[in-house]
């Protein structure tokens, strides 16, 4: 558990981060969203003390971060940034091994961990281990950057716009990868982004920052349904709110018995995608595959009802 307690950062008397408190549960992803200058990156950098807080405290599993030397603390906290920040003079394997080497792991243990991570990120170890970062594509560099951040099984992974430099298709693949890997490893992740879509898609919790303050910290559905301020509502994107809400719900939730024809869709498909399919095909219902029953269906009416459910 990560506890952020009344943390502030003043620059020339002006608060960049103003008395922010929040608690992050182990094994969850928290998306920190805000516009430029909202203090979200400063907040993140205070957690691994790249920026020293002016006041307040951060505790990781009950232990204050101020109890360790900053560089020792940082070895226990993964850190991945926009533009990957890989060491260009190290091979992929050595980049990933950077923190385990600092921690004095044995050679065999490091080699095994490197291969394990490359496998996890769908990069064939024998093919990628000895390459240099300049010989990788942008998406591969980014994956190696995240693998490096995860290498020592840190208590917490901090990510600052990790997908900011990727094109939309690679970005959405990287987001899916991150979600899958986070579920597999049970990592605790705090991710800074300016993209509400990304925060809603990835986050178990979303924290919205505005002018140095934490204005709302809640589950994505809650943020969409009940934005705490006009600013949050604007970030969530006004007219797109019903669609955002639908994007969080799998069709499995409202699948009912009933006849339909055609090929069944995956039960994890979001209601937004199901809605789009209905509209595009001009249909009132879609068949949905069910793991332990014959295919059911999801109807346009049921989707509509669910979208209006927030009132």
């Amino acid at each position, binding site marked *: 558990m990560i506890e952020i307690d009344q943390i502030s950062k003043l620059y020339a008397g002006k608060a960049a981060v103003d008395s922010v408190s929040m608690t992050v549960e182990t094994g969850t992803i928290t998306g920190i969203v805000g516009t430029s200058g909202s203090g979200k990156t400063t907040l993140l950098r205070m957690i*691994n003390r*790249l920026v020293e807080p002016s006041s307040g405290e951060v505790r990781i599993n009950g232990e204050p971060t101020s109890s360790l030397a900053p*560089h*020792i*603390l*940082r*070895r*226990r906290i*993964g*850190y991945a*940034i*926009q*533009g*990957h*920040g*890989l*060491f*260009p*003079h190290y091979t992929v394997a050595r980049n990933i091994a*950077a*923190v385990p080497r*600092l921690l004095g792991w044995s050679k065999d243990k490091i080699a095994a961990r490197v291969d394990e991570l490359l496998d996890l990120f769908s990069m064939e170890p024998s093919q990628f281990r000895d390459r*240099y*970062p*300049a*010989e990788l594509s942008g998406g591969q560099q980014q994956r190696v*950057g995240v693998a*490096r*951040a995860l290498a020592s099984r840190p208590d917490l992974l*901090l990510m600052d716009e990790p997908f900011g430099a990727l094109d939309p298709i690679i970005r959405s693949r990287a987001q899916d990868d991150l979600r899958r890997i986070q579920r597999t490893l049970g990592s605790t992740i705090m991710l800074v982004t300016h993209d509400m879509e990304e925060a809603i898609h990835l986050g178990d919790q979303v924290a919205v920052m505005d002018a140095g303050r934490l204005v709302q910290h809640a589950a994505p559905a809650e943020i969409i349904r009940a934005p705490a301020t006009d600013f949050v509502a604007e970030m969530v994107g006004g007219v797109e709110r019903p669609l955002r809400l639908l994007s969080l719900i799998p069709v499995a939730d409202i699948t009912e018995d009933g006849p339909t024809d055609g090929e069944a869709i995956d039960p994890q498909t979001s209601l937004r995608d199901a809605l789009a399919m209905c509209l595009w095909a001009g249909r009132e219902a879609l068949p949905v595959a069910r793991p332990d029953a014959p295919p059911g269906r999801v109807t346009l009416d049921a989707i509509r009802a669910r979208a209006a459910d927030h009132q």
Partner: protein
Amino acid sequence: MKAGLILRLVLIALLLALVLRPEWFAFAFAPFAPEGGPVIYQRASLLSLSLSHLGLVAAASLAATVLAVTLAILVTRPAGAAFRPLSRTITNLGQTFPPVAVLALAVPALGFGAGPTLVALFLYGLLPIFENAVTGLSTLPPSTVEAARGIGLNRWQRLVRVELPLAFPVILTGVRLSVVIALGTATIGSTVAAKTLGEVIIAGLLTNNTAYVLQGGLIVGLFAVLIYDALVSLEVRLARRLGLERKGR
């Protein structure tokens, strides 16, 4: 590439022959020698002059590199930033002060011989290395430096494992400039009795023997060209390794 390799081998062979078997070239230098005068310099072995010349340059450049890089590291740390203008002034001074003047001033203190030449070459070599090292250390990719801090490298580890290796090609460029300047400048050391290839040139000037001047000049020139070339290829290889220049472009 192949043509370049052949040219290099030819130049190396020519240099070796000029140093080890100067008498082979008597026919070529004879037209430049005064009538009845000696054609080939024989007062000292050209090999020992070359080795002593290269030794002086190497010692001075090494000392200049150590001091200039150390200074550059200090002034690129947050605590040392205030000293950057001062260091720049000092190294600039070394460059603007003519080596001949340094020789003249150093002789009373250090006596005749290699000492004053070492001082002159050392002072003259500081600036290019310092400037390049400062540039190299202050223009590192920001995301790499940030990541190095973020994953828990301490100051010393960041310097040794990340900053210096990444700045190395740029520092090497400075060393190359400095070495090539020193190779030429070392010849004037023979005016204060340092053993260098300048001895041959000066002997030629004193006796109006152009053959000597050509001989000394040619050997120094070939050393400079070959050493310059070797350092350039080293830089290119390092830069490619760092991905600063991608393959196949």
